[in-house]
């Protein structure tokens, strides 16, 4: 019974009137026109097994290329026998995050701070080496691993700085407010590509002579500063959503500015701004691709560089399809999560 009614519902939706029927046919034709060649290319006519370009049938996608280059897409030029270090760093990071998420409420804060202090230096040590691990230059890093590295470490700069400037923008001290507004509007007003150029050119210039700064670190710092400005605006939304009475009540109880901020204001404001902050994190992941302009090869950069391989000429579509799909999956999952948080927050408020 249910089946029949849903069927008739679909008939009503797609062929209810002559006009909707016509529209459905036109749209269906358009979809078929795009989808049929796409499916034929990517699935039916595609070659999956083999080792060289010669194994690939013409006219279809050559997924052999992705298979042969999979290691590079993931790790860049990171030495093959050392790739376990990247995997280990990734697993540690994942375990750290999960342990904080699933920890009992009273331990969560302390555990979170501990992870925040321990994991970043541990990650850098694992990836770059030193202390009995082989030293691996950042020039050899690349691929998806580098995309994630830049996103995570840039947000480690961006989130604290963003919270600080969001508070500064709401401050009643006029000078602090002015400094924050100038900082935020400056970084929001300039293109990120220009900031990456700027960081790679100016950072070595303004530091005392002799201090060399790694070119990947420059890109991470540059991105961190821009995203901090966008994060600050995301946090400001949360701060403004809080009723004024919250701070007034906290002050009336005798809490100092920082105590009131840390115990009353931020826990509530950050919860409200978490979806907006997640959206900024998505934007950050998308913008890490720009490190290409200072010849750091993240996932998209590796895909682009692989097109120059004389053994694999004409693999443009395969490389773009694969790297694009990975970006899409990551960003889509995050945006769904952000939307979920938003509806969750809305439900709690009502």
């Amino acid at each position, binding site marked *: 019974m249910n089946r029949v009614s849903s069927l008739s519902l679909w008939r009503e939706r797609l062929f209810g009137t002559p006009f909707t029927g016509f529209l459905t046919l036109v749209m269906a034709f358009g979809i078929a026109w795009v989808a049929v060649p796409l499916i034929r290319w990517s699935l039916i006519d595609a070659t999956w097994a083999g080792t060289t370009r010669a194994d690939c049938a013409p006219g279809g996608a050559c997924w052999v290329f992705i298979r042969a280059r999979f290691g590079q897409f993931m790790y860049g030029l990171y030495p093959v026998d050392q790739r376990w270090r990247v995997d280990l760093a990734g697993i540690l990071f994942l375990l750290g995050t999960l342990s904080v998420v699933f920890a009992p409420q009273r331990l969560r804060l302390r555990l979170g701070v501990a992870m925040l202090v321990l994991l970043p230096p541990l990650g850098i040590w694992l990836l770059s080496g030193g202390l009995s691990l082989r030293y691996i230059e950042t020039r050899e890093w690349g691929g998806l691993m580098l995309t994630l590295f830049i996103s995570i470490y840039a947000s480690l700069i961006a989130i604290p700085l963003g919270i600080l400037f969001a508070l500064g923008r709401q401050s009643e001290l006029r000078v602090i407010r002015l400094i924050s507004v100038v900082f935020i509007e400056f970084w929001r007003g300039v*293109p990120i590509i220009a900031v990456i150029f700027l960081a790679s050119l100016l950072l070595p210039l303004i530091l005392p002579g002799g201090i060399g700064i790694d070119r990947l670190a420059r890109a991470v710092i540059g991105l961190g500063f821009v995203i901090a400005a966008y994060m600050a605006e995301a946090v400001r939304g949360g701060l403004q959503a809080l009723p004024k009475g919250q701070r007034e009540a906290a002050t009336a109880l005798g809490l100092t500015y920082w105590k009131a901020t840390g115990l009353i204001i931020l826990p509530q404001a950050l919860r409200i701004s978490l979806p907006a902050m997640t959206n900024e994190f998505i934007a950050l992941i998308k913008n890490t691709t*720009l490190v290409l302009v200072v010849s750091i090869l993240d996932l998209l950069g590796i895909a682009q560089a692989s097109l120059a391989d004389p053994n694999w000429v004409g693999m443009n579509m395969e490389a773009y399809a694969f790297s694009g799909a990975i970006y899409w999956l990551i960003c889509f999952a995050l945006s769904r999560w952000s939307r979920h948080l938003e509806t969750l927050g809305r439900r709690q408020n009502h």
Partner: protein
Amino acid sequence: MNKALSFINDKRVRDWIYQIAAVAFLVGLTIFFVRNASENMVKAGIASGFGFLWRTSGIEVPFVLTGYTQSDNIFSLFWVGVANTMLVTVIGIVLATLLGFVIGIARLSSHWLTSAIAGAYIEFVRNIPLLFFVLFWYFGVIAALPAPRQSIGLFGVAFLNNRGLTIPLPDSVDNLRWAALIVLASWVAYGLISVWARRRKERTGQDAPLLAIGIGLILVIPALAIAWASLATRWDVPVLRGFNYRGGFAVIPEFVALLAALVTYTAGFIAEIVRGGIESVPKGQTEAAGALGLRPGRILSLVVIPQALRVMMPPLTNQYLNVLKNSSFGAAIAYPDVVSLFMGSALNNTGQAIEIIAMTLAVYLVIGLAVSGLMNWYNARIALVTR
């Protein structure tokens, strides 16, 4: 507590101490950076000052709107970059707005399949980096277009191939200039008439046939003027000679790829803004207007659109500024915009990083501030008047 120290507990005094400390910290940091920079620059033998702007540039640019040649100075190179940035930004904004509105309205369509396709497009585009689209259009699509000999002809006057787009160029612009003047005059006339009609309606309640006047002044007269001007002008139509097209104006493939990427990407974001704006108008508004006897067209133009526009304007402005900033993605495919020409080529030639970076960032900041100022004024004007 010592009486002499008790002023520390005065909130006003403390506030001043904090603010002075913050300023002192910033000034100290700046002095530290500037001293390091000047030391490092002396060591590396880099000059400072803006004198380099008047040196001959010697940089060849494949896409020039300003009449610049290699023997001009670096300052004119800067303006070439600014002009190229503005060109792709303005055209990108217009096309992205059109596509974005179409997709946004399609998303709201009551026809399920139309809405689903629009939704799929939006979800696809928003979750992929813009640089991906730039590289894809440049290396994936434009590079895969046929060679000039097998060009895709557009109405027999423009030709699309893997070397870009060749379009006809007028021999003289006199007639076109007159046409532009006529278009402008008739638009201004429409603006004046609509103001007059509104005043009259407020006074007497009489409607003026604004729609007919609008079609005439906004569409018909300008179309006639442009048609007359294009027919009266001799056009230099590109012709295939040997392996490439001669004559006309060659739009480089980098421009086509960057524009296509900006439009397809930004349209996804504008579509969401349009959808959100129209959905933000409560259904009761439409129903109430209908109950008052307004026809559907008037409901849309008098009730829904003015209210939706108020919600849409701030995020839309943000997107337009994003197009301006994102036009710098052209640097990745060597489109000669201000970042790649000035921050790239000119900086490599002169080494004067600080001056060049400051000038380039100033372009974006000045335009951004001007647009936000304009939009704030506009928002204040259309803001809801509550009494």
